[in-house]
């Protein structure tokens, strides 16, 4: 039952740990946990259930195998500030739209870098939403946070990716 979702589980572990070796270890450990807790599976989506286990395993793993990387906390990123409404963000209207450029399949590595630099709380909701295409409710289940928190973290994650991407494009000399 778990086997068809191992790719999704690995991908999630890979984004959480940002490292292929750690992701492999996390996936192994998570499979054992899934195996152990299978009796506790209450129905619903197996994938969501497995991703929840992967997430818990990854955080435990990173806490005990921290390789000189400090896992940033929510507070460091000021996530508890109320989210600013869209219109309050001053948009400079560039003719060469950074988002358009992102569509051009250039700088995949740079995009990956932008995503890796997100705090873990932001990165996980972004991956669960954009790659796994989970609903807010399902993401809330996996991350063990209220739906409202999922909502604001996802919005912030997107704003942050957008801002950092713009910065990257600007540093590169405005495109091209």
């Amino acid at each position: 039952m778990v086997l068809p979702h191992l790719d999704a589980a690995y991908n999630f572990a890979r984004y959480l740990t940002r490292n292929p070796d750690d992701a492999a270890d996390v996936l192994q450990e998570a499979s054992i946990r899934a195996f152990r807790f299978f009796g506790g599976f209450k129905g619903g989506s197996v994938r969501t259930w497995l991703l929840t286990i992967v997430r818990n395993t990854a955080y435990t793993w990173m806490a005990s195998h921290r390789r000189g990387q400090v896992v940033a906390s929510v507070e460091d990123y000021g996530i508890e500030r109320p989210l600013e409404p869209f219109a309050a963000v001053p948009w400079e209207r560039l003719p060469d739209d950074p988002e358009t450029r992102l569509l051009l399949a250039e700088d995949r590595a740079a995009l990956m870098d932008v995503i890796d630099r997100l705090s873990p709380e932001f990165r996980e909701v972004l991956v669960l939403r954009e790659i796994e295409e989970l609903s807010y409710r399902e993401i809330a289940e996996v991350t063990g946070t209220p739906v409202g928190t999922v909502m604001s973290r996802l919005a912030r994650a997107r704003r942050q990716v957008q801002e950092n991407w713009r910065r990257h494009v600007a540093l590169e000399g405005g495109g091209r």
Partner: protein
Amino acid sequence: MSCAEKCLLVDLALDDELDSAGLAEFEQHLQQCPDCAVGFARQKALRGALRAQMPRHKSPSELIQRIRDALPDEVPAPGPQKTAPATNVVSLPAWPTVATKSRLKLALSGIGGALAAALATVWFMHVTPEDRMTQAVVESHVRALMSGRMYDIASADPKTIKPWFTGRLDVAPPVKDLSAHGFDLIGARLDYIDNRRAAALIYRHNEHVITLYIFSTPSAPMSESDPVVRQGYAVCHWSSHGLTDWVVSDIDSDELEAFEDLVTGPV
């Protein structure tokens, strides 16, 4: 609802989290608010780009293979089912819909806490030390299979394996060559289970791996258990002469008992 509040709906609209009335209202707002319209278009572009460009990491195939091999073919469905049928068809009971479930939850929330506490107590009393050990050895066995690091020392010779434990354990575990009976010794490792050190001897029988754990238990009375099947693995244990053995494998219970007889029998 003010414009600023409406603008917060951009993400919800993007994620299909608005109901049809909310969506209609939001779309109407977009007509009148250029800021939101531009913001929404940008977010849409970003979403498209992320979905197209974010790498989807594929798991290494040898890792998947190891996990596949380590897990038993068929994990028995939760419940009182004793033997898993040899079929791949997994039939799930009809789960209540989300709506019914949340209504149920609401109805039960009052007594839920007390009930959960009571159940937890029953469960806790229900888990015996034997259950815990069974779970622990099965997990150790599976973890070793999965990691591909089954043994620290590879050898079919008891004379090589036995001295290897000197200094690593406070007992000299008896090691037997059972190859004449179809159980090939392939290696050994030092393991740590339930806060105790154990010698783990690895045997192979046809395509099946058997792990024999040996613990030093100076005060354990002589005893012997019937094999139990846990998550597709047969497990049994026995104690004598200050040692306790636990054996786990995916062979069937009869073969496991045959193995036990060989291990405990005369040399």
